[in-house]
C-alpha cells in the first residue's frame, strides 16, 4: 500500500497552524480593548490587595485627631476621615478585604456548584431533582434576609463562646473576633452564591453529555468518573470561567452591600462597604469620604464585568463571529 505519501501531500496542506485552544483564546482576549483594560485594572487591584500595606505611608488604624476630615492633599491622597485616619490607606486595605472575601466566597461557591451541578446533569434522575430543588429553594430566599438571619442567629452565640474561651484560657486567639466576622461573611455569602454555578454547570453538562465525543468515550469503556472529569467538566469550563470572573465582581459588591448594612465586615476593619456607609452620613460636608471608596468599588465592578465579557468572546470563538 502506498497510502502514506498520498496523505503527506493532500492533507497536511489544509491543516491549521498549531495553536493551542488556550493560547488562541488568549490572543482573542488581547485584541479586545475593553477586556484588556478590565484585566489591567483587575491586576492592579490584585497587586494593591497583596502589597497594599507596604505601599501606604500610614496604617489604616492610626488616628491623627489633629488632622480630621481633611480634604485630599499630597500628604493624604484621599484625605482623612472623622478620626483622622488616612482614607487612601483604608481604601487600599479595603481592597484586600474585598479580594479575600470575593476569592474565598467564589472558590467555595464554585466547588459546591460544580460538584453538584456536574453530578446532577450527568446522572440525572432522582439526584438531579433533589439538587435542583435545593438550588431553587436557595435562590428563592432573598439573599439579604438569609444573611441577616445567619448573622443574627450565629454571631452572638459564637462571640460569646469565644469570650468564654478567652476567659478560661487567656489565649489571645479568642480575642480576634474579626475572624468571626469573616467566617460568617464567607459562610453566608457562599451559601447564597453557589446556585448559579450549579445551574450553569448542570446545563452545560446536559448539553455536553449527548455530544459524540462523550458517546465515543463511553464506547471506549472509560469509567463515568473519567468521562466526567476529562471529557465533560473541561468542556464546560469556558462558560464557568466567564461566570467566575463576573462572580468575583458580584461578590465584591455583595460584600460591600452587607458591610454597608452592618452585617458584613465590621469596623474598624476597613471595607469599601462600611467606608461608603460612614461616608454617606457626612457626604454633603466631606464628599471625598464617600467618593473614594465608591469610585474604587465601581471601578472594580466594571473591570470584572468587562473582563468577563471579553473572556466570553475569547472562549467562544464561534459565538463571537
Amino acid at each position, binding site marked *: 500500500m502506498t497510502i*502514506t505519501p498520498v496523505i503527506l501531500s493532500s492533507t497536511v496542506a489544509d491543516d491549521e497552524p498549531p495553536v493551542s*485552544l488556550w493560547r488562541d483564546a488568549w490572543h482573542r482576549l488581547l485584541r479586545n480593548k475593553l477586556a484588556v483594560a478590565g484585566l489591567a485594572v483587575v491586576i492592579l487591584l490584585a497587586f494593591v490587595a497583596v502589597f497594599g500595606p507596604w505601599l501606604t505611608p500610614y496604617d489604616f488604624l492610626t488616628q491623627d485627631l489633629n488632622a480630621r476630615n481633611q480634604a485630599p492633599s499630597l500628604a493624604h491622597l484621599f484625605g482623612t476621615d472623622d478620626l483622622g485616619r488616612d482614607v487612601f490607606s483604608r481604601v487600599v486595605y479595603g481592597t484586600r478585604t474585598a479580594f479575600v472575601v470575593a476569592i474565598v466566597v467564589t472558590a467555595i461557591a464554585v466547588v459546591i456548584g460544580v460538584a453538584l451541578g456536574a453530578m446532577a446533569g450527568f446522572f440525572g434522575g432522582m439526584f438531579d431533582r433533589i439538587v435542583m430543588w435545593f438550588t431553587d429553594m436557595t435562590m428563592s430566599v432573598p439573599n439579604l434576609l438569609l444573611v441577616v438571619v445567619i448573622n443574627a442567629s450565629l454571631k452572638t452565640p459564637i462571640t460569646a463562646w469565644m469570650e468564654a474561651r478567652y476567659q478560661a484560657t487567656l489565649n489571645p486567639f479568642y480575642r480576634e473576633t474579626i475572624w468571626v466576622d469573616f467566617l460568617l461573611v464567607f459562610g453566608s455569602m457562599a451559601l447564597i452564591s453557589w446556585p448559579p454555578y450549579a445551574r450553569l454547570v448542570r446545563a452545560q453538562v446536559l448539553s455536553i453529555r449527548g455530544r*459524540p465525543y462523550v458517546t*465515543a468515550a463511553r464506547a471506549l469503556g472509560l469509567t463515568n468518573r473519567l468521562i466526567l472529569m476529562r471529557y465533560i467538566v*473541561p468542556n464546560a469550563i469556558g462558560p464557568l470561567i466567564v461566570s467566575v470572573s463576573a462572580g468575583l465582581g458580584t461578590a465584591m459588591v455583595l460584600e460591600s452591600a452587607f458591610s454597608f448594612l452592618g452585617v458584613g465586615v465590621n469596623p474598624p476593619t476597613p471595607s469599601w462597604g462600611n467606608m461608603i456607609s460612614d461616608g454617606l452620613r457626612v457626604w454633603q460636608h466631606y464628599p471625598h469620604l464617600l467618593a473614594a471608596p465608591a469610585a474604587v468599588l465601581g471601578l472594580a465592578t466594571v473591570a470584572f464585568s468587562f473582563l468577563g465579557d471579553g473572556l466570553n468572546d475569547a472562549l467562544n470563538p464561534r459565538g463571537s463571529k
Partner: protein
Amino acid sequence: MTAPADNKPLLDVRGLTIEIDTRRGPAVIVDGINLTVGKGETVGVVGESGCGKSLTMLSLVRLLPNKIRVKSGTAEFAGRDLLKMSKSELRQVRGGKIGFVFQDPMTSLNPVMRIGDQLCEPLIYHRNMSKADARERAIELLRLVGIPGPEQRIEAYPHELSGGMRQRVMIAIGLACDPELLIADEPTTALDVTIQAQIVDLVKDLRKKLNMSVVWITHDLALIAGLVDRVAVLYAGTVVEDAPVNELFARPTHPYTRGLLASIPKLSDERASRLSSIGGTPPEPGRRPKGCPFAPRCALAESVCHERVPVLEPVAGSTGHRVACFVAQRQMMEAA
C-alpha cells in the same frame, strides 16, 4: 463466506428489536435484525439514512440514547451475550474487544484533550500500561494509520488536524487495544471524496495486518464494494438481503437492493442523487405497514406483500445469499 461453516461466528445477532418511547407509546425502530460476522470477516451494512444502522451498532455495546431500548433479541459476541453481560464485563468489551469509529471526526474527538492523551486513555485503562508505554504505543498507532510526524502530532489538539487526519486518529483510537471487531459507522460520510477512498484503503490494509473483523456501516454501496466480504442490506430496521459482495452485485434480488444498485452514480454523473430510482420515503417509527415494510414503495408488490411479512430465507441456487421478499424468492426458484 470466509469463515468455515463449523466455526461459530464472532458476532451473532438474532432477532434484535429496538423500540423508542414516543408520545403515542413505544414504537419499533429496529425489527428483528439477524446479523452474523465471522472471525476475520468484513461485513458491510448498507441502508438509507434513518433505517436503524447506528442504533443497531450502539445497542450492541448498550449505548442507546435515552428512551430507546432493546426490546428483544440476543447479540452473542465470542459466545457471550452482550445484551446480558454485567456492567464491568461490558466495559472490558467496549474499547477492549470492540472498537468504534464514528461518523463525524469533527465532533467525535474531545476538543480540549491532546490526541495523544485520547489515544493513551484506553491503553492505560484496558491494558494497564504505564504512561510512557502508552505514549510509545500511541505514536506507533498514529504511524500505523498513516499520520506523518506522529511524534509531533501526538501533542496536537483535534482542531489542529484536518478532517481526514482526525478520522485516522479516530481509527487509531478504535484500534488501540487490538479489538477483535471494529465497527465503523459511516466513517467517511463527513469527508471529501478523495479522502474517503484513502480511509477505505487504510481499513482494508489494517484489517489484514491485524486479522480483525470489521463491520462497515454506510449508505454508499459503491464505496465499500472492494472492501467487504459480505453485505447486509437494511431497510426500515430489518435485513432485507444478505449476500457475499460479489453475489450481491451479480444477482441483486430484493427490489430495494436493485434500486440501490441502479442508483449508484456512474462516473459521468456524480451529482445524481443516490436513491433517485426509488420513489417515496421509508416508514416512520410507529407507522410501519402491516406486511412487507417496503411494500408502499415497491413496484413489484402483490396482495400478499400487504398481508404478511416476508422472512429472510436462502435464495435458491446460491450459497450464503438470503433475501426477504415473496416475489424475489419465487422468481429465483423459477429461474433455478
